[in-house]
């Protein structure tokens, strides 16, 4: 397997091929394209969290000079009650249409009601003020528990809980119930000497990408419509928009611009279909760019959650049962990632008796979007906090407790399969043996460790490699590159073709130049699109051999190919890749390799983090003073960008644990829009983030890749939470550990 092999490019710290454009400002992002004749679109948003729209009159806005089009919900084609692939899950078309332009109710502060296109951005803003909307304000439900109460105001009077033995006849805010189990938890708890249980809460927080959602679109009657936008999956933008507007896929080209962060939040559509309606009505290209407040009000966020967990163990630390009830907010429309929460929470452990029950609950907040390992951080926070409580109660080291119960090859998961080879034990051992874990702590300092599990996904990727007559080639792929994945594609293709990196240029193609490719999400790109690149490169090599064979008048089987050179095993001849390409016109035309796959065999990536935190007992301020992120990459194609994923995930998790939360007024209005009040970590908040990259290869990938994008955001919540608890000498059950909450914990401790 890959461990023993020497690679020429894989594992090197190469300069990314798109780097020059990104450090010079030339790279073109979502808001950077302007077209001749272009006008600007703006969105009118609801000031209320929950209200019925009793009157909507856009006539004054339409009559204003400079205004060229107005869009409202009824401009969507009649969409069916159909689920479509959207990002890392599925979305219902009616819900999608009603989220991006409200139907007859507004369901959260900031919910889009109408949109205007005008000659300038300022005119469009002015026109919004001329739209007349009358609301019948309804009481909002702002937490899952409030929404589940028997007398709670109901958001959707046609929503009946699914997943119960009998579908209720009364509408409620509980969209769905899920359940996963193995063994018998009651029997497991009966065997236990020690039991811990607790309820753990996490807040609503946002992906926090720095680039707001933006698009420039052009509708053309002749079937050449175009959307340019920042997205993690432009093929899925095409699917959603075409369905919402009743178009055929071939009549809509979607171009993925460079993307300024997504973390799952750019896997669905918001403005794109609306802009296309405005373009159709006005006959002009339309640009729509959200401002930061709109990003916070109406995109993302991730589910707030309320989770109860119970764990039983024998005196020697053997866990006999784990049980959890996970309640996740979906936002205004059904579809929280609670199922993933149930599937991941207990998965770092091999335990014979497991039970996880989940509830998907709608509330008057924006519809949640995927956020890095969607659903996993919330549930695993609860489970990992409880495991650390168990270690304390047993008087055991928390890493030893985890090692004793660690999931490994052959472990039965709660969601179905048994694990193939996984690297959790290696991560735990690296944590235990680290210098960090042995380092002394001072007064008011505490340490926490936690594990994280994420499945990683495969799926469809299409790649072609076009070879040029001079022996250079273009790698044409369809996965938007958010974090340097083009570098990995270039390295994997160069390794297979045996030609220098700089001879290969990777590009992210638009939806017309390539067959369907799933978006960048689920940590799938280096794994699945990488497999497609490898397959396309192998297809090129096969053709190079055939062409050389034709020139030498031998069979292709008589040709060997290594390090970019073809050898005639029946004689002395040899020819480089470039020489074969230069003669392609004589051997049947130019060479294109193809790899259109639906990748199976994604390898789970486990992570273990260690956090040291110092608490100021006077103010409740916390400082992360040392942090180590350990994760199994399978194989690190580009170690620097793998480390970057570990570090970035860790810091997003630290932000989630320490500061980030949506703050709502009692009326359901968001009170902390903008980066000043919704405070994501800044450079001075943090130490260096040490990384240890473990490589336990995934047997299904030619180089052993697992995918590293997501697991790293999971452990910080409980690692930071436990470090704070240990620093104060108390229990932590709720995030974020912002200074007021920490101060309260210090004072309650006395």
């Amino acid at each position: 397997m890959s461990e023993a092999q020497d690679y020429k490019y894989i594992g090197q710290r190469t300069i990314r091929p798109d780097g020059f454009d990104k450090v010079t400002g030339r790279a073109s992002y979502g808001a950077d394209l302007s077209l001749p004749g272009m006008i600007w679109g703006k969105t009118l948003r609801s000031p209320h969290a929950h209200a019925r729209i009793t009157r909507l009159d856009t006539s004054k806005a339409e009559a204003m000079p400079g205004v060229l089009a107005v869009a409202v919900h009824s401009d969507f084609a009649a969409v069916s009650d159909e689920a479509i692939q959207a990002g890392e899950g599925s979305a219902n078309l009616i819900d999608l249409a009603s989220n991006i332009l409200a139907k007859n109710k507004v369901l959260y502060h900031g919910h889009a009601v109408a949109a205007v296109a005008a000659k300038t951005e300022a005119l469009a803003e002015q026109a919004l003020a001329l739209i007349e909307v009358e609301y019948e304000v309804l009481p909002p439900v702002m937490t899952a528990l409030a929404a589940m109460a028997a007398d709670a105001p109901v958001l959707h009077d046609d929503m009946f809980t699914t997943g119960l033995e009998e579908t209720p006849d009364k509408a409620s805010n509980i969209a769905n119930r899920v359940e996963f189990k193995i063994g018998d938890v009651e029997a497991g708890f009966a065997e236990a000497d020690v039991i811990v249980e607790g309820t753990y809460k996490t807040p609503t927080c946002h992906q926090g990408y720095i680039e707001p959602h933006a698009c420039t679109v052009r509708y053309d009657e002749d079937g050449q419509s175009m959307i340019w936008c920042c997205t993690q999956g432009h093929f899925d933008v095409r699917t959603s928009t075409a369905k919402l507007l009743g178009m055929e896929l071939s009549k809509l080209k979607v171009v993925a611009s460079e993307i300024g962060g997504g973390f799952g939040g750019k896997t669905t559509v918001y403005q794109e279909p609306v802009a296309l309606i405005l373009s159709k009505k006005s006959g002009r290209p339309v640009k729509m760019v959200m401002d930061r407040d709109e990003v916070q009000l109406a995109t993302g966020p991730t589910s707030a959650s309320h989770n109860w967990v119970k764990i039983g163990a024998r005196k020697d630390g053997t866990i006999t049962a784990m049980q959890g009830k996970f309640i996740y907010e979906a936002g205004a429309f059904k579809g929280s990632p609670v199922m993933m929460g149930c599937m991941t929470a207990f998965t770092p452990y091999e335990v014979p008796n497991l039970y996880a029950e989940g509830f998907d609950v709608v509330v008057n907040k924006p519809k949640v979007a995927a956020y890095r390992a969607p659903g996993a951080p919330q549930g695993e926070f609860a489970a990992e906090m409880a495991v650390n409580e168990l270690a304390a109660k047993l008087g055991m080291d928390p890493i030893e407790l985890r090692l004793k119960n660690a999931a490994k090859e052959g472990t039965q998961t709660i969601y179905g399969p048994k694990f193939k080879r996984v690297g959790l034990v290696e991560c735990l051992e690296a944590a235990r043996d680290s210098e960090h874990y042995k380092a002394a702590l001072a007064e008011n300092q505490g340490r926490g460790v936690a594990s994280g599990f994420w499945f990683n996904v495969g799926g469809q990727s299409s790649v072609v490699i076009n070879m040029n007559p001079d022996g250079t080639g273009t790698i044409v792929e369809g996965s938007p590159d958010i974090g340097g994945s083009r570098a990995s594609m270039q390295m994997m293709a160069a390794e297979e073709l045996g030609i220098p990196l700089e001879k290969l240029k990777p590009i992210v193609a638009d939806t017309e130049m390539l067959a369907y490719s799933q978006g960048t999400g689920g940590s799938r790109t280096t794994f699945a699109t990488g497999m497609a690149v490898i397959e396309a490169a192998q297809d090129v090599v096969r053709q190079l051999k055939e062409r050389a064979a034709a020139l030498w008048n031998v069979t292709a089987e008589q040709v060997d190919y290594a390090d970019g050179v073809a050898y005639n095993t029946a004689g002395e001849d040899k020819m480089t890749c470039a020489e074969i390409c230069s003669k392609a016109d004589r051997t049947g035309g130019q060479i294109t390799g193809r790899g259109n796959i639906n990748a199976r065999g994604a390898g789970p990536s486990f992570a273990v983090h260690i956090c040291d935190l110092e608490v100021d007992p006077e103010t409740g301020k916390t400082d992360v003073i040392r942090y180590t992120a350990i994760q199994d990459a399978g194989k690190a194609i580009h170690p620097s960008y793998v480390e970057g994923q570990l570090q970035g995930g860790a810091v997003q998790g630290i932000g989630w644990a320490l500061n980030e939360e949506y703050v709502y007024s009692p009326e359901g209005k968001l009170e902390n829009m903008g980066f000043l009040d919704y405070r994501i970590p800044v450079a001075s908040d943090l130490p260096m983030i040490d990384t240890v990259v473990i490589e336990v290869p995934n047997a299904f990938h030619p180089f052993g890749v697992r995918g590293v994008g997501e697991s790293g955001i999971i452990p910080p919540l409980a690692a930071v939470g436990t470090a704070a608890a240990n620093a104060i000498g108390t229990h932590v059950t709720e995030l974020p550990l912002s200074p007021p909450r920490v101060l309260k914990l210090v004072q309650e401790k006395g």
Partner: protein
Amino acid sequence: MAKVHVTTSVNGEETEYLCEPHETLLDVLRNNLQLTGTKEGCGSGDCGACSVTVDGRLTCSCLVLAVEAEGREIGTIEGVGDKEKLSVIQQKFLEHAALQCGICTPGLIVSTQAMLKDNPTPTEEDVRYYLAGNLCRCTGYDKIVRAVMDAAETLPSERGA
């Protein structure tokens, strides 16, 4: 509303534009002058993606009115490095993989250049506090801080050469 005529200097080139009185320098750089390397992340001076220099001083261009550029010297990411060669700071960002999505990168490079002019030998703490106004959501800042420290170490020898 009548547009205002402004004469200024952008990256050393004399530049004229017409702008609305309410438009920001960021709007004009991006929409009138097509200098889209300067990014808008928040429009409220909190993220640093729109960092430029005005008469050498580091500024968020979203907080400056376009009319205020009259007679000033504006520096943007497009003016960093030269046609032939990346600057040391740009090169170090690439070598250290100090960017993932890259949206914060132009602002960080403009800020880093301004910092190293003021303080050519920063400590890690200096770097972290100077760049605290430039948000990056991808990297966790580790590789950015390393790239900036490396650039600071490399630059004096470049100057001496």
